[in-house]
């Protein structure tokens, strides 16, 4: 049986999850030139926010059709609060400081968030069960789960809404202006601090959507889940051209598909039998990043980084 359509679908699904998280990296970078390494942990807290809603707030036996939107809201609120709080209390005081300072702060924050969840969330030091959406559908040669449908639909809706918001709304235009030249944007009457908060909030919410999708798809979450997903999403953002939201989406999809195809098919190449399978997936993902950066350092959709005055 031909497995290619199924593998492509898997790649697309994984890629849309990367893309959703990558938006957070790319928007924040585009506006404040900060790589928010704590973003993976914001994703993780989003998952635990949603888990809290399901296990501790909703009564047992709530149908998933009701629970999922509420989990999305709960996870979204937690992720937004943490993202905005990080901006307000960790990054804003360092604005204007040498670039290394906020970067180190981000790494510290990421460790702190992991440890807080590990120590204080009941059972979070091991994988905790997350309600799954496991009903499957056969579409010809592809089989997908309900969780996959949730993932793809929410990714498309989120990205379309974001693209529309950034291009057409007043705040979106202010966002573009702030990304291009924050000082001038201020003089045009734009409250740039507010714009930065909005960028962090949108990134946090998208990460929470991805986190709920992750939980529903894989059926468990733990305090370390943000590390690898964050790293992959960051890779996707760089791959697509960091600072560019369409780049983040494209980078996510390319990375997800490449990783899935490589782990599925690379062992069929003579001499590379040992290099296939899931355990090598990350290797191929990061190889792809290296190759793209060698050929197109600005990323797939990035523009050449002009020197700032």
């Amino acid at each position: 049986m031909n497995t290619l359509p199924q593998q492509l679908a898997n790649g697309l699904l994984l890629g849309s999850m990367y893309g959703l998280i990558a938006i957070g990296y790319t928007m924040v970078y585009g506006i404040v030139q900060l790589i928010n390494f704590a973003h993976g942990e914001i994703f993780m807290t989003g998952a635990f926010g949603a888990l809290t809603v399901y296990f501790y707030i909703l009564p047992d036996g709530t149908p998933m059709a009701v629970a999922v939107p509420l989990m999305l809201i709960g996870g979204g609120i937690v992720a937004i609060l943490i993202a905005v709080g990080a901006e307000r209390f960790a990054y804003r005081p360092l604005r204007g400081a040498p670039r290394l300072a906020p970067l180190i702060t981000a790494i510290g924050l990421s460790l702190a968030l992991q440890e807080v969840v590990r120590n204080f969330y009941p059972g979070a030091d091991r994988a905790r069960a997350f309600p799954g959406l496991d009903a499957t559908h056969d579409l010809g040669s592809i089989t997908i789960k309900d969780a996959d449908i949730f993932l793809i639909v929410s990714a498309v809706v989120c990205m379309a809404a974001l693209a529309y918001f950034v291009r057409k709304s007043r705040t979106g235009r202010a966002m573009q202006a702030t990304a291009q030249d924050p000082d001038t944007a201020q003089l045009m009457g734009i409250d740039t601090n507010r714009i930065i908060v909005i960028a962090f909030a949108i990134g946090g919410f998208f990460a929470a959507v991805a986190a709920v999708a992750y939980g529903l798809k894989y059926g468990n979450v733990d305090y370390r889940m943000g590390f690898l997903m964050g790293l992959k999403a960051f890779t996707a953002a760089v791959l697509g051209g960091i600072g560019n939201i369409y780049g983040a989406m494209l980078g996510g999809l390319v990375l997800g598909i490449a990783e899935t195809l490589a782990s599925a098919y690379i062992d069929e190449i003579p001499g590379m039998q040992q290099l296939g399978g899931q355990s090598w997936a990350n290797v191929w993902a990061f190889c792809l990043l290296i190759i793209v950066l060698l050929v197109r350092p600005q990323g797939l959709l990035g523009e050449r980084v002009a020197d700032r005055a």
Partner: protein
Amino acid sequence: MITMTTTTTTGTPVLEATNVTMRFGGLTAVRSVDFTVNSGEIVGLIGPNGAGKTTFFNCLTGLYVPTEGTVSYKGTVLPPKPHLVTKAGIARTFQNIRLFANMTVLENVLVGRHTRTKEGLWSALLRGPGFKKAERESEERAMELLEFVGLANKRDHLARNLPYGEQRKLEIARALASEPGLLLLDEPTAGMNPQETRATEELVFAIRDKGIAVLLIEHDMRFVFNLCDRVACLVQGEKLVEGTSDVVQSDERVVAAYLGTPFEGVPEDSALDEVEAAEAHSATSTTSVEVEGDQK
């Protein structure tokens, strides 16, 4: 003799700077400058390079908070945040063009309207009728401004693809979009040819006729003296002279400040031209146009 004659006091003060001093560490860039712009006036600020003109501008727009002194607009002291200053009614352009290069001409003007439009996250996402209406009105106002400066036919061009002179015009349109009561122009004719300069002159008069007071920094003396009701000369951070064009033009110290040597008698046109040429040259060489042919 310092002549403080304000011959054309056309109205009430729009901008009042009192005793403005700006220090950077040990360097005093602006020293106790008092300055007023009245409604309906065009006022010029001249001075040799490094005299503190742009620093003074930055104090007026909230980019710098003056070390001492206050700046008030229509009687209220300005908040030290640039975006609030714009909201209060002061708009500006820049010595080096600072358009949003990757946005279209129309989008640049729409960003300029930021403080005069209202719209939240939700209305934008939900696209209510109110949102569409506000958006349409905003676009109409922006198009009016583009027609006013003569760029209406280029609305969908990227700002970075405009020729230099039109980028300057677009900056003015963008500044006017915030519906200011006072417009600050920082070297509006730098790098322009004589035709473009003349067109800018007419544009400034037209802006004044809209009821907007104008304060401009300029090195092109003919431009300044043609245009301005009142001129102030800033030298080494201090206001040396202020008065009508004639008064300032014939003040020996102004000429001395520009040439660096005492000057005898009334300055001749040729001498002024030389200064002008030198200044214009230095101004253009520092004016980098942010147009980079980096189309991927």
